[in-house]
């Protein structure tokens, strides 16, 4: 109770003391002189940052240059470093760092307070070429911003998506194995899997490699439109995982179907698991869409041929990969 009374008394007296405020002094506070050298440094640094951002966009768009990844990292890193350097110079040399020390809650030096307040208000006026600074800042923002946005271009074509369906496969093209020998339908056994390529074309194309399996035709649960795509139960899928573009190199097959897990194609990178019997549907893992299926037919010699193109776009749903060309 006693303490409360003392506090109340102190509070009241303080309030009374604060009321008669002296008028602010008329004398304007003194600012340091303008610093042209530092200004120039800030502007140059910002412009260089914008230039480096533009360089990142250039490197991103030109996939033919060697060491592209290193150039990308270098340009973006230098751009961000230059922005940081400009901010450091700006804060160290051109901004006022006056501080007022006061005992809270008393305002002991109202005159000084006012002076600092004016200093802060007029701090901007110390920079003589504000327009230029703003332009340089804008250039840096545009350059670095463009650098950060550029990878979005690789998410896919903005308009025509036809290029995603460009593969070497078309009706009548023969399937060959890794040694170039044509694959005959009666050579394809159940319980194992095969890798196949299109005859007489590049194997480096992302749409080239196939994984081939044979299932009992009674086990197939293909969509109605694909009933004729699997002659004798032979199914062909793109070997490129639709998640991150790894080769789908694992096939699990049951030894005893009533107990064991059902047949599945598995990608070793992140364990995306596809069900061949259901047209490559994803049954586990991070892949976002089914493995594209290739329709097959058997020619008069008994060899396997493509009966058309894939059921969907081949390749990963992942940025940057479609710009990339395989090195021989």
């Amino acid at each position, binding site marked *: 109770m006693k303490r409360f009374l003392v506090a109340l008394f102190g509070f009241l007296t303080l309030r009374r003391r604060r009321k008669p405020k002296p008028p602010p002094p008329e004398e304007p506070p003194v600012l340091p002189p303008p610093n042209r050298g530092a200004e120039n440094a800030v502007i140059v640094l910002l412009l260089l940052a914008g230039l480096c951002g533009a360089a990142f966009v250039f490197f991103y768009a030109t996939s033919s240059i060697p060491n592209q990844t290193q150039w990308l990292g270098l340009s973006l890193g230098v751009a961000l470093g230059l922005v940081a350097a400009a901010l450091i110079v700006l804060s160290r040399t051109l901004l006022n760092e006056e501080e007022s020390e006061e005992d809270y809650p008393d305002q002991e030096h109202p005159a000084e307070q006012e002076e600092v307040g004016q200093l802060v208000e007029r701090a901007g006026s110390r920079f003589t070429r504000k327009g230029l600074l703003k332009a340089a800042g804008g250039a840096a923002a545009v350059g670095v911003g463009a650098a950060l946005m550029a990878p979005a271009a690789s998410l896919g074509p903005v308009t025509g998506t036809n290029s995603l369906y460009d593969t070497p496969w078309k009706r009548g093209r023969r399937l060959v194995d890794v040694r170039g020998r044509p694959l005959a339908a009666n050579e394809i056994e159940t319980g194992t*899997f095969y890798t196949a390529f299109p005859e007489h074309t590049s194997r480096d194309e992302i749409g080239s490699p196939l994984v081939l399996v044979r299932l009992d035709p009674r086990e197939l649960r293909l969509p109605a439109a694909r009933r004729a795509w699997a002659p004798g139960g032979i199914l062909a899928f793109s070997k490129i995982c639709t998640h991150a573009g790894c080769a789908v190199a694992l096939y*699990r097959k049951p030894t005893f179907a009533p107990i*064991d897990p059902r047949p*599945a194609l598995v990608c070793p990178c992140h364990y995306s698991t596809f069900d061949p019997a259901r047209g490559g549907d994803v049954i586990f893992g991070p892949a976002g869409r089914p493995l594209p299926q290739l329709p097959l037919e058997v020619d008069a010699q008994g060899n396997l041929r493509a009966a058309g193109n894939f059921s969907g776009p081949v390749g990963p749903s992942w940025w940057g990969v479609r710009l990339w060309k395989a090195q021989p």
Partner: protein
Amino acid sequence: MRRLRLPLVLLLGALAIAGIAHGQPPSGISRPSNETSVSQLELGAELYAGNCASCHGVAGRGIVSNMAHQGTGGIRGRGPSLRGVGAQAADLYLRTGFMPLSNPGERPYRRRVLFSDPEIRALVAYVASLGPGPPIPRVDPAAGSVSEGFQLFTEHCAGCHQSVAEGGYVTDARVPPIKQDTPTQVAEAVRTGPYLMPKFSQRQISDAELNSIVAYVQASKHPDDRGGWGIGHLGPVPEGMIAWAVAGIALVGLCVLIGERVKA
């Protein structure tokens, strides 16, 4: 405290019993008493009837339905037919301890072999007599090339078994390491495709290529660790963990060494 004691004793007792039960070998092998006096095929047939038929059915016909088959001791076992699998598969499953399973739904994995060598030979001969099937493959790692084997292993096997044959995972199953397998067992597994593994025909892997693969598998049992410590040969994950654990602690130690504590 007193109230806790009885459940605790019960729990410990149950754990002890479970531990003993777990430590026991799978249910014993039933053997004919006159093992040495019967012919090999007869011995095989008797061992088959006593230890295999509950799942694989009479004369290797398999039990695919849930119905209890004749001669299976009333057990509603389930197992594939063994007709036509040949000596190749029987030899692999028996010599790796994959079979017999203690429970029909169990996944086969490498464990202690419960049959003696003459018993295995008798069983293999019996299973081979059930129907025409592939014989035990002949393999000669000395005729293969380790470098070619490495390429072939990377192409056909490393997806599941990893590049130094340490094993790994496939969705829904563990992929075993190939460290304990003999050259013959590796060849049998490649041609048979045990459990979830695909089988590989001559069209995919020729006998000469198989020799090279086996030569590589043999070489991979003692990899040349230039770094000094293989860390399980599991690749970047344990290597990264070691880097973080060791380098991280070293960095913190360095900071403590050179840093200056600021008194507030």
